[in-house]
């Protein structure tokens, strides 16, 4: 048996990657590796600050595993650091126990390339990857998942995790037909706002203006980035250049909102509004997502409230968001959002964790959201 070696993914390895994916599928793996070396999201192009590198673990000519590093600059306590998102580590060990050692090898190879890396998403703490990372003393943080329902009837008719028995399905369908679901869920959100804020207004001052942008992010976004970055312990660069790379104006899936009051930019939010079809959790609902955003902590609530109103007014059945920082999570709850079970886990390698110590205390300032993950997939 040849020794395992690490190599960048090049065209020459495409057939071997395809064969690897076939073996993974045949073994029942739900994941496969991209079958070409040109990243669909953030490909490596000259002059680009953020891009993806793909690596393979080869045994002779056979691919036995691989992983992706997405490079990005982050502000850590106000200082810039080059950090990589450790994505899609895949090993043949998932389907063939004689390669069980590869999981650990892949992590160690990635750490050799860049000691400051993080993993994000991963499904649940019970899965193999987060278990491995936790055992390797990575810092683990569950990024909260919050949701707000606009159309109670559509929600109860579609939400799979709650429609677990026939009796529940019937009950929910009747509630939807009678309009009780709309009233009940509106009452739940109202109760949440009341618990969080009492009768105090969410916002002082006139209602802000919400611009649905059709042009690229500009100097105003750079200015906001400069003012906001030091308010978070960890925040991926969100200057105009980076925003135009992540959320280009020509990509019409993105709803790019700028929230202003009296000519002052309070913040921005990037959202999606997706009609689901037989989704494993959301059924056939129209689900809007607050993917990303930036504001000074004092303005986050206004930005979240404005974005949520905008998305519900477009006709979304519900609005969801994963927001890591206390400022954004609190703002969501203040706006009536409820927390659901999170499958979005942030794991910081030991070197990155060191930068973020005391990790648990500084996690309140981790401005981590879907914008730091795999890109606009599954949303």
């Amino acid at each position, binding site marked *: 048996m040849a*020794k*395992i070696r690490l190599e960048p993914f090049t065209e020459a390895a495409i057939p071997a990657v395809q064969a690897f994916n076939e073996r993974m599928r045949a073994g029942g793996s739900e994941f496969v590796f991209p079958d070409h070396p040109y990243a669909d999201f953030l490909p490596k192009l000259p002059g680009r600050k953020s891009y993806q590198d793909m690596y393979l673990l080869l045994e002779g000519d056979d691919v036995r595993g691989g992983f992706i590093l997405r490079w990005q600059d982050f502000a850590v306590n106000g200082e810039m650091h080059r950090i990589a998102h450790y994505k899609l580590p895949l*090993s043949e060990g998932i389907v063939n126990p004689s390669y*069980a050692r590869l999981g650990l090898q892949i992590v160690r190879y990635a750490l050799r390339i860049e000691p400051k890396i993080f993993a994000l998403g991963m499904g649940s703490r019970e899965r193999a990857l987060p*278990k*491995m990372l936790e055992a390797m003393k990575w810092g683990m943080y569950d990024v909260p998942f919050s949701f707000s329902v606009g159309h109670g009837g559509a929600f109860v008719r579609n939400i799979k995790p709650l429609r677990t028995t026939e009796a529940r399905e019937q009950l929910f369908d009747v509630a939807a037909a009678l309009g009780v679901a709309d009233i009940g869920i509106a009452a739940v959100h109202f109760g949440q706002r009341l618990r969080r804020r009492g009768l105090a207004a969410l916002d002082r001052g006139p209602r802000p203006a919400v611009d649905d942008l059709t042009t690229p992010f500009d100097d105003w976004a750079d200015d906001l980035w400069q003012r906001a970055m030091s308010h978070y312990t960890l925040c991926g660069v969100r200057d105009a250049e980076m925003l135009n790379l992540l959320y280009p104006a020509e990509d019409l899936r993105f709803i790019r909102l700028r929230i202003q009051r009296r000519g002052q930019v309070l913040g921005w939010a990037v959202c999606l509004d997706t009609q689901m079809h037989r989704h494993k959790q959301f059924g056939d609902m129209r689900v809007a997502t607050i993917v990303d955003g930036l504001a000074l902590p004092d303005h986050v609530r206004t930005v979240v409230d404005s974005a949520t109103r905008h998305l519900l007014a477009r006709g979304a059945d519900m609005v969801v968001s994963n927001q890591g920082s206390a400022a954004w999570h609190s703002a969501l709850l203040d706006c009536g959002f409820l927390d659901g079970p999170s499958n979005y886990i942030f794991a910081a390698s030991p070197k990155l964790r060191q930068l973020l110590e005391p990790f648990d205390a500084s996690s309140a300032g981790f401005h981590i959201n879907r914008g730091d993950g795999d890109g606009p997939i599954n949303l």
Partner: protein
Amino acid sequence: MSQSLSAVAQIAADLFGVSADKVTDSFSAESTDKWDSVAHLNLVTAVEERFDIMFEPEEVDEMKTIGAIAKLVDEKRAG
């Protein structure tokens, strides 16, 4: 049995829930269903902690049996 082999075998026996005398130097992922990627990581990190060493990814590749792990421990300790 070398001191390293007996210590590594004991760690593996505890981890995989088998009696130490069953863990010979040829004991491998084929010997037990419990030797998956997470168990492999737990085995290697336990060995690293026990001997205060750190394995490189190329060394992890050689860790196909308990005997191979013990041999690597001996090599690392010998410097």
